């Protein structure tokens, strides 16, 4: 006999003038191997077709289904209900624009952050599609790939007390991006250039090392290591 779960879900549609933020309880029977994705799908199919939540890949790759699960940021598709108590509360990720219910616009935040940090490869401007690409050390490629595993789900921003308190803080996702391009030998930017974008209290020096990011990252990225390294590297720009 499986458990009977009670899901307390945040409900609010900001585009409807009459909508007031609140929660609604849904009761359903747990099935073997049930994830929150399965549970929410069943609620939408069987109990409340108007419930908003985001899913694309169901496999922890797209980063759409991040939400506060019993107060902790996490991916719904990767969270087994068996790992949770019978009462489960689901809230949208704080710090992002609410689309409706559990759906937030992380994309808008991520894009603004990327544009602000210029988080793309800055090559020397001599890219030639007909020329063979310069080889890269396998170790370097591996290191870059490790940081590229970030799926921009927004959990680190929702788990960061600094980012919650100061909305202009770039968060671990932003600092991780800077670390990634710093590693890339094709990127011509110098430490001084990186200092330009994250060398202040809304960047790496604003990080208070609360390490919420490290502890909630669903991809298990070692964000503490990256931020400490970036802090040491960019602190040298003070002299």
């Amino acid at each position: 006999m499986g458990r009977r779960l009670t899901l307390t879900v945040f409900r609010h549609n900001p585009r409807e003038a009459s909508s007031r933020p609140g929660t609604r309880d849904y009761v359903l029977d747990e099935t073997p191997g049930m994830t929150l994705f399965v549970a929410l799908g069943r609620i939408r199919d069987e109990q409340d077709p108007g419930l908003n939540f985001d899913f694309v890949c169901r496999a922890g790759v797209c980063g759409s289904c991040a939400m506060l699960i019993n107060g902790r940021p996490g991916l719904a598709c990767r969270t087994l209900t068996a790992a949770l108590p019978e009462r489960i509360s689901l809230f949208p990720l704080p710090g992002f624009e609410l689309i409706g219910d559990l759906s937030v616009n992380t994309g808008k935040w991520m894009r603004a952050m990327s544009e602000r940090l210029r988080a793309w490869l800055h090559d020397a401007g001599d890219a030639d599609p007909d020329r063979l690409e310069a080889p890269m050390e396998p170790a370097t490629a591996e290191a870059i790939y490790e940081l590229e595993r970030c799926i921009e789900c927004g959990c680190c921003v929702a788990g960061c007390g600094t980012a919650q308190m100061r909305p202009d803080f770039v968060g671990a996702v932003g600092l991780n991006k800077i670390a990634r391009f710093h590693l890339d030998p094709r990127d011509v930017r110098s430490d001084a250039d990186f200092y330009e974008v994250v060398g202040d209290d809304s960047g790496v020096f604003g990080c208070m090392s609360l390490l919420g990011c490290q502890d909630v990252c669903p991809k298990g990225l070692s964000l503490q290591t990256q931020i400490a390294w970036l802090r040491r590297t960019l602190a040298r720009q003070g002299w």
Partner: protein
Amino acid sequence: MNNAPPAPRPSPFSPFRRTSPWPARLDLLQSGSGLFLGLFMWAHMGFVSTILISPDAFWTVARFFEGYFIFGRPYPGLVSLVVALVFAVLVLHAFLALRKFPGDWTQYTVFWRHAGRLGHGDTRLWLLQVATGFAMFFLAPVHLYQMLVHPELIGPWESADRVWSGGFWPLYLVLLLAVELHGGVGLYRLAVKWIGFRDPASARRRLLFLKWGMTVFFLVLGLFSLAAYVKLGMDHADQAGERYRPVGVWNAPVQETRT
């Protein structure tokens, strides 16, 4: 074949520096001043707790820092100099740490709610750091000013009289808790802030274990020391103000004592 070295690749950014170097400097200064104060407080506790060995032991430590065993007579001004330095570093650290304090009601509420729902130890520890840091704005200067202007009144009876007859023990009790909790968390935070661990999870487990171990050790040592001063102060209350004369110290000074 052109063997000329490749021209340096131009930076896509302006060669003119737009960003101030000060955020980096302030961050380092905050960490550096915190490191100094944290380590100083541990050493300080070591000196203060020599009262648990014997009044003579504490008397020897106090006179040592006045240069008595080097110059043959005590110079309390040397202690004032160290106090002034610590005071200055404290002011600097407090000023820099203020930047991190929640600034308004919204920030306090947001952080409080965040810490409440996340159930995350390191996040909660920060609230403890803010609270104890705030308390020290008011507690630490009282003690420091006293030490700055009356450095000669550091001794077994002198300190005990201040603690008991002078009514300082409640301040010292709260200050002890604030300092040890704040310093312990702060030193732990410095480690995770600057050291890039290969395996952060296990490194943090060990660091937290070490941090709490040190905090408990220094708190217990501090409480026992304070109790010793209280006891000594009670016993000496009738002669409060009398200077201590060592019993078994070699080469004890001929010091004027009020009898």
